[in-house]
């Protein structure tokens, strides 16, 4: 919502563009079959389109709006998402605008009880977290989408029906000029928490609705505090509640404050009440300067997900498949991972570089990531917004002890920093009993470390990458490797080799999304190629050799 007198898209710092529906010649082919339709041109839909385009696959992107999402919404972008931006060629705009951070401060009744550091070091290419408004996220993705010849975007075009057929889906679309039908072989539903595709197909999100409600407000002020996440427990301004404060670019600050059970949502959203609540928070922060109200909304801490993220030729991606509480900052970040995951898999299948079975791994991998978030964020929710007497009593006890005892403050440390592991996926090969003494396992993200003048991940190719550690293996692989697979030779004496816990004849295979697909302590080049068939669900590499 915006203050009285300002239009929905009248921001203090961002100029919303206006997008027309397809016009003139662009309407000639509206009803032509599209190989992939993406519903929703939000951050997730655009990421999916770019991920498909990276594989050379065309898509048509539909959105019922005429501009980006109103308000800032999601603001915390995790390190893992920056790797996705980088693979899509858009990371530089994000790095330039966003504010990286590593530190969080928690206060109990005005006294600092915890200072936490997220894992970071000079070995890491990206910071663990960056703050940036969602409008900029959408703008930077749009800058890439709008110039990509493989992506056609149709704004002001609403999907009003979908029918599943054997080899395609029929979609009914309404735009300002007409209602028309088009067919598509594959559909990615990136249409958000209120997904209409989900409703049309009769699927429901399942899970828990927590009682905790937060008002999220963006204000503009010249406040002299570094980019550190602040959590205020039981502050003067909101006794019994919790307040979160984040810095964003352009002097915009995000304030999330918890509503107590007696506060009605509708009343809490009243502009005067929002202004009073913000003033009270600022008083606790000892900020006495002026400030302007930018935008606000309300959020409930829900954990809801679909049982299956796939229905035949339709994949659910992002919020259409799962809704998570805000504390874990995993809503948008998991959405990016969903989009990148289905993007490369569908691309590889459509290019006949992988068998269709690869697509079956999308839902288990990404639903698994959601369930992992639920586990961690329900723990966070129970601490941040305890809804029972026992949990509230223990929370208050921990916070009270934390003033003097460090261990109790650690209980307030939000758990949000470990990327999910695809350890049980069909799209990886589990360790055999070859006894790696350490190093990352299949299903984990390839860890980062500096190597030569850059980073380990810089060495990865666009498709699968084989990391090997002696010249003979590398040379032989180069002779027999199928197209689309990169071979990287790493010095056995390097720190990277130590991190990977490898020997002379070891090898790692890394997937296009940076996850480790398989590893062997001792393997021949010929066997590596055989194993690659398994990973791509091919009986043999049917596509062209180099």
């Amino acid at each position, binding site marked *: 919502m915006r203050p009285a007198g300002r239009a929905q898209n009248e921001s203090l710092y961002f100029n919303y563009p206006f997008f027309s529906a397809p016009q003139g010649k662009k309407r000639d082919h509206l009803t032509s079959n599209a190989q992939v339709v993406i519903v929703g041109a939000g951050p997730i839909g655009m990421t999916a389109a770019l991920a498909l385009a990276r594989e050379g696959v065309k898509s048509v992107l539909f959105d019922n709006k005429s501009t980006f999402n109103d308000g800032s919404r999601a603001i915390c972008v995790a390190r893992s998402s920056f790797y996705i931006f980088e693979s899509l060629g858009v990371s530089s705009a994000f790095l330039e605008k966003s504010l990286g951070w590593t530190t969080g401060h928690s206060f109990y009744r005005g006294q600092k009880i915890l200072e936490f550091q997220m894992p970071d070091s000079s070995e890491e290419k990206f910071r663990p977290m960056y703050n940036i408004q969602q409008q900029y996220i959408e703008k930077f993705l749009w800058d890439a989408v709008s110039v990509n010849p493989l992506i056609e975007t149709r704004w002001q075009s609403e999907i009003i029906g979908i029918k599943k057929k054997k080899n395609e889906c029929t979609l009914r679309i309404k735009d300002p000029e007409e209602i028309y039908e088009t067919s598509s072989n594959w559909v990615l539903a990136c249409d958000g928490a209120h997904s209409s595709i989900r409703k049309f197909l009769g699927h429901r999100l399942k899970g828990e609705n927590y009682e905790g409600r937060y008002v999220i407000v963006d204000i503009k002020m010249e406040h002299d505090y570094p980019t550190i996440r602040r959590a205020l427990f039981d502050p003067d301004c909101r006794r019994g509640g919790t307040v979160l404060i984040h810095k964003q670019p352009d002097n915009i600050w995000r304030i999330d404050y918890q509503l107590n059970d007696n506060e009605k949502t509708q009343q809490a959203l009243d502009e005067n009440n929002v202004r009073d609540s913000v003033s009270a928070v600022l008083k606790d922060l000892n900020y006495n300067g002026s400030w302007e109200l930018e935008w606000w909304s309300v959020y409930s801490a829900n954990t809801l997900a679909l049982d299956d993220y796939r229905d035949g030729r339709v994949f659910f991606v992002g919020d259409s498949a799962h809704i998570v509480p805000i504390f874990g900052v995993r809503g948008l970040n998991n959405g990016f991972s969903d989009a990148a995951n289905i993007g490369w898999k569908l691309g590889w299948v459509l290019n006949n570089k992988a068998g269709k079975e690869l697509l079956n791994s999308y839902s288990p991998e990404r639903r698994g990531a959601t369930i992992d978030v639920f586990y961690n964020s329900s723990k966070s929710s*129970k601490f941040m917004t305890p809804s029972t007497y026992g949990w509230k009593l223990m929370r208050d006890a921990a916070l009270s002890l934390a003033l003097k005892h460090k261990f109790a403050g650690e209980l307030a440390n939000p758990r949000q920093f470990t990327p999910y592991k695809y350890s049980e996926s069909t799209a990886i090969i589990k360790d055999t009993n070859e006894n790696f003494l350490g190093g990352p396992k299949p299903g984990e993200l390839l860890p980062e470390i500096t190597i030569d003048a850059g980073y380990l991940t810089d060495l990865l190719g666009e498709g699968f990458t084989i990391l090997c550690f002696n010249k003979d293996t590398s040379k032989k692989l180069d002779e027999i490797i199928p197209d689309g697979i990169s071979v990287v030779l790493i010095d056995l004496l390097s720190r990277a080799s130590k991190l990977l816990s490898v020997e002379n004849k070891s090898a790692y295979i890394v997937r296009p999304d940076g996850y480790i697909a398989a590893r062997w302590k001792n393997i021949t080049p010929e066997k590596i190629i055989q194993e690659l068939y398994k990973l791509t669900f091919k009986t043999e590499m049917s596509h062209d050799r180099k």
Partner: protein
Amino acid sequence: MTENKIEIVYEAIADKIDNLGEEKAKLFLAKLSLLLANKIEDTSFVLNAIDDAALSLNQ
């Protein structure tokens, strides 16, 4: 005690209080304190903990 262990204990106590209900919470917590204190040889440590727990109780 590691962070994870204290978390397990924290959650177990919270759940137990909820199972017993608010009325019985005080007696339960007093009994738990005695059970745990009985396992600690160093009486001065327990007495210090009693003082520490009594700090910042103003609501």
